């Protein structure tokens, strides 16, 4: 059992900070705290795999993510075998790319989602998902570099889950169709017998609500692209 040392430090530092920030008593530290601890733990595992190919940490990642990725593949209409392969291929990519994971930039689940998404586009659709390259000389960097916000990220993710649950059913459905059914907006419109404009505006509404949770109401793009 070679649990990386940084992992323990990260978790306990996070816990202390959280207790300080929130002033939570031990009774209140419930599911939410568990989720946040889990997020930090998964981040630490990705770092351990990236830094020294830690197999114990990788096993932990497998236990957490493989069943989810497999479910993701199955939702996208693949066979059991294909879904299993998607989980395996994605886990191999995670192993190979773990050194590129940066906990200040993305939550572990977001990072894994991107890899799983790209892998399924590759395997199921025989296409690529073109992406920008932050090391490209043409790349225009962000004006402000985000602080190290592992803790905030864990909390933001938790908020996001809660807000997704409270979205109106119609918006939640559209999000699921977009993410899990590989349907274009016009496919969705056709299946749901809705005008395309309605599908687009519902998706935008859902996004606005979710972003409000992450940015606060005065986020940089809050009013933009109303149309």
């Amino acid at each position, binding site marked *: 059992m070679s649990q990386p040392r940084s992992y323990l430090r990260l978790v306990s530092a996070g816990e202390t900070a959280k207790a300080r920030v929130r002033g939570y008593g031990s009774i209140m530290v419930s599911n939410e705290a568990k989720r946040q601890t889990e997020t930090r733990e998964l981040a630490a595992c990705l770092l351990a795999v990236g830094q020294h190919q830690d197999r114990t940490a990788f096993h932990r990642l497998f236990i957490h993510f493989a069943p989810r990725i497999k479910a993701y593949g199955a*939702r996208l209409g693949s066979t059991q075998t294909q879904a299993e392969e998607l989980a395996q291929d994605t886990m191999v990519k995670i192993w190979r790319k773990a050194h590129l994971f940066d906990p200040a930039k*993305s939550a572990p689940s977001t990072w894994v989602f991107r890899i799983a998404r790209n892998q399924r586009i590759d395997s199921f659709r025989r*296409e690529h998902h073109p992406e920008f390259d932050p090391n*490209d000389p043409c790349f225009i960097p962000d004006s402000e570099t985000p602080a190290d916000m592992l803790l905030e990220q864990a909390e933001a993710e938790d908020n996001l889950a809660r807000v997704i649950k409270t979205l109106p059913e119609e918006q939640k459905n559209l999000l699921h169709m977009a993410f899990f059914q590989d349907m274009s907006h016009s496919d969705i419109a056709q299946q749901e017998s809705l005008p395309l404009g309605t599908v687009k505006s519902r998706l935008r509404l859902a996004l606005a609500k979710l972003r409000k949770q992450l940015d606060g109401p005065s986020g940089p793009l809050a009013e933009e692209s109303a149309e």
Partner: protein
Amino acid sequence: MTIAHHIPEDILIAYSSGSLSEAWSLVVATHLALCPDCRATVSVIDDVGGTLLEMIEQTETDEQAFDRLMRAIDDLPMDDVQPASAKRSVPAILPEPLISYLGSDLHALKWRRLGKGVFHIPITTGDTGVKARMLKVPAGRPVPMHGHKGNELTIVLVGAFHTHQGMFERGDVEVADGSIEHMPVAAPGEDCICLAVTDAPLRFRSIAARVVQKFIGI
């Protein structure tokens, strides 16, 4: 450089969720390289994807799956880690991922004549039915007038053009659908170079342009 014309959020959602096909996604990713604002939006949408993945009803994986995975990993070549991106010689004009699709930066591109002083380069993607191409329009000249049966996304990379919606400069994206009959005109001073993606054959108004179209198959 400030970007005035962004990618609509519903297209960003389609890009991030993975439901947008490759040629459209190429325009989105090229815009993202030049637009921190839209990158911030996509990062939120990716977070939604990550959260939905966390919340998904899980499927059992079998007992041997991890052992099989580790055997596959042990079979990987020793130094098989994803390399950091290669350094490019400056000055670089076309951003990633576009440059990888074209195979070279602007100076080495082989343009093909399209007529009326306009040149183009078709781009191959895994996307069937949606066509991507680079377009070069001489300074001050109109892009041959056309309407659209389908959708079109155009991102400016060098120079500028204007339409009734305003001026489009480097990084700006023009979104057109079947309802728009538009006539972009390249700004004076320098040739305008764009990446244009469309899912319908363009309907050129002039007979000459239509004849050209028939032969080059755009």
